[in-house]
């Protein structure tokens, strides 16, 4: 299929949308969170209800990806009013349909956040939860059916691809990404444009593009939700990247723990191939690119790029020393571009709106928006996207609805086992790459776990050390032995058997492991320990003086 054919399809779909016979659209969240709360049954019951009332020509019911507030699920969004009902179950669907669609009187008691707010918002967009957010990577997530490419196409889907193929050279695409000042969303924050340029500059017959969807951090589910809610957006980002760096083959490495994300991404590939958006001679041009899915097999270290490459090659996921960086010698020794799911999800908007538009969002050093997965002792746990530089206080209190049961905030953990804890005294920290590093934590991939006084920080440090100890691949000694020794010392302190010497030894070991480990796993494994020591040292000392 060439460009004209695709345009014809898009026009036809848009015309269909405009002559929409449907007066209402009801979106039922079918993200992994809401499915666990029973949204698939709600979806089926709702379809039956609409049918039994003979309204199937007036009301369109679609399943969508994640809408955000996962712990209020199953969620149901009525358009065009933008009224969201929470905790919908099969017993109250009839009542909701009757009052919302027929009597036009929304049921206040069932609205989103009705159990927290005295007057919940009928238009959910007015709610501070949504008002404070800015959705770029998550745009369309929760509004469209992720299993239908047509839904994506009418919402400017593959418009950016069309633009780069027919208007821009690879150099211009890279310049645009560089201008956006986007930094990789996988955690380290390496400038995306620079990475693309490096891969572009290496001359090779064969280059690869890899999408890193091995979201191993416990407490993070951003990649999962993006892949489940809008897989085509990620695919479009990958195709654009391939065009820019000159790659002809791509792999999406997705965790085996995410079967729904795998299923939807594979479906997206199939649909795109059918329309000639993926495969040989994309949209009738000379550019060809194909994508395969590789399923992760449960190893945290595979999030590290060289380990991920080894895993795609069918081997044990052990990292290699860098340099050479994958940009020079990656998959099967060829130049390889690896970006995170969220990075790829942000590419199409940058191409459509220009790099300058993106660089104006956020802070000077961290442009754009960041998706966070809120979890732990917070009222509205789920998925949010805010401009970089939003304060932690705004995220927790204005968006997240504060701490459960009105408790006091104690700490927020970011960056998973490679990150650290932010104490209450730094609640006003601006969430961007550099501010978090200065606090001894990292942005990481975006997991944000909120803790109240019930969390014992020494045990938190022990928990993460246990994680790193288990996940250490065993290749280099500092990580393999060091994490085990640090874990044992932490365990000892947790059992109130620690001494001051143990504490000293821990601090000494932390520096050794951090500086001598081969890859990021070992180099960052001491971070949770060091940051809790920095901000909650008294908890360690209390444990010790108790003996």
């Amino acid at each position, binding site marked *: 299929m060439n460009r004209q054919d695709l345009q014809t399809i898009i026009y036809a779909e848009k015309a269909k949308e405009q002559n929409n016979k449907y007066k209402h659209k009801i979106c039922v969240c079918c993200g992994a*969170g809401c499915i666990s709360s029973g949204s698939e049954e709600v979806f089926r019951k709702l379809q039956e209800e609409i049918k039994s009332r003979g309204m199937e020509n007036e009301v369109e019911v679609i399943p969508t990806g994640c809408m955000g507030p996962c712990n209020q*699920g199953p969620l149901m969004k009525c358009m065009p009013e933008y009224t969201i009902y929470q905790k919908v179950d099969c017993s109250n669907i009839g009542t909701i349909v009757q009052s919302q669609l027929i009597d036009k009187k929304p049921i206040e008691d069932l609205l989103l956040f009705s159990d927290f707010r005295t007057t919940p918002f009928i238009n959910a967009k007015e709610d501070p939860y949504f008002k404070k957010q800015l959705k770029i990577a998550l745009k369309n997530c929760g509004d469209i059916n992720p299993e239908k490419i047509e839904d994506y196409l009418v919402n400017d889907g593959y418009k950016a691809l069309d633009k780069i193929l027919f208007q821009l050279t690879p150099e211009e695409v890279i310049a645009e990404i560089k201008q956006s000042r986007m930094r990789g969303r996988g955690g380290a924050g390496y400038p995306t444009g620079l990475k693309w340029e490096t891969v572009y500059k290496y001359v090779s017959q064969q280059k690869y593009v890899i999408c890193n969807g091995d979201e191993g951090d416990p407490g993070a589910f951003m990649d999962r939700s993006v892949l489940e809610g809008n897989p085509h957006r990620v695919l479009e980002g990958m195709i654009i990247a391939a065009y820019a760096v000159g790659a002809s083959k791509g792999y999406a490495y997705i965790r085996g723990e995410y079967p729904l994300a795998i299923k939807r991404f594979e479906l997206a590939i199939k649909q795109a191939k059918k329309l000639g958006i993926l495969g040989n001679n994309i949209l009738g041009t000379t550019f060809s690119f194909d994508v395969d899915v590789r399923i992760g*097999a449960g190893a945290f270290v595979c999030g590290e790029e060289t380990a991920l490459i080894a895993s795609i090659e*069918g081997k044990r996921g052990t990292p290699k020393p860098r340099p050479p960086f994958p940009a020079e010698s990656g998959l099967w020794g060829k130049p390889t571009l690896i970006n995170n799911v969220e990075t790829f999800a942000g590419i199409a908007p940058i191409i459509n709106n220009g790099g300058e538009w993106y660089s104006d969002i956020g802070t000077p050093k961290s442009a754009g928006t960041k998706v966070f997965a809120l979890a732990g002792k917070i009222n509205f*746990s789920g998925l949010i996207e805010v401009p970089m530089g939003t304060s932690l206080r705004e995220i927790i209190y204005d968006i997240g609805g504060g701490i459960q049961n009105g408790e006091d905030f104690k700490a927020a953990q970011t960056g998973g086992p490679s990150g650290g804890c932010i104490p209450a005294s730094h609640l006003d920290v601006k969430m961007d790459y550099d501010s978090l590093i200065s606090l001894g934590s990292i942005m990481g991939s975006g997991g944000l776990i909120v803790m109240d006084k019930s969390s014992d920080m020494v045990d938190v440090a022990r928990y993460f050390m246990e994680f790193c100890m288990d996940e250490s691949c065993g290749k280099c000694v500092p990580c393999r032995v060091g994490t085990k020794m640090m874990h044992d010392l932490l365990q000892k302190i947790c059992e109130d058997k620690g001494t001051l010497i143990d504490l000293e030894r821990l601090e000494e070991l932390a520096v050794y492991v951090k500086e001598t480990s081969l890859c990021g796993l070992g180099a960052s494994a001491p971070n949770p320990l060091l940051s809790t020591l920095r901000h909650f040292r008294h908890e360690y000392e209390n444990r010790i003086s108790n003996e």
Partner: protein
Amino acid sequence: MESQKTNLEPSKTDPRLKLIAAKIKKENYKADALIEILHTAQNAYGYLPINVLKYITKALHLPPSRVFSTVTFYHFFSLKSKGDHTCLVCTGTACYVKGAQLILNEIKKQFGLQPGHVSADNKLGVQVARCIGACGLAPAVVLDDEVQAKVEVEEIVNKINAKLLVS
């Protein structure tokens, strides 16, 4: 005794083996598809029996050490049967903060099973996961592939008992 059992060739007529053979053929007998093939095998058998691993080793012309080292490296692959019913407790950070350990303690108390163990009658297996990505619904437990959200200790014990009664 164990080794005698595992020396048996997998039955050629076993439909599960045909699935694996088809996958190997589809991947063109390439060694780099090893993990994909192991996924297929584990889906078919529920775990990776030694004789099936031997079969894969032969088909891909790989040294057994390469296959065995790959299998044992990844958490997803298991060399032992996981039990008729599986109870997978998520111990990700959010679930940890919300009391996953209490759930594990209670399971240990009620069923005498620690993570990674299967009951003597092979009816129930208990595992832990690093994070299943259902953090908004913590603490989460996956009971026979069905995610249980915001689990209460008592409730999950009852649900496990109900599963055991049915079979």
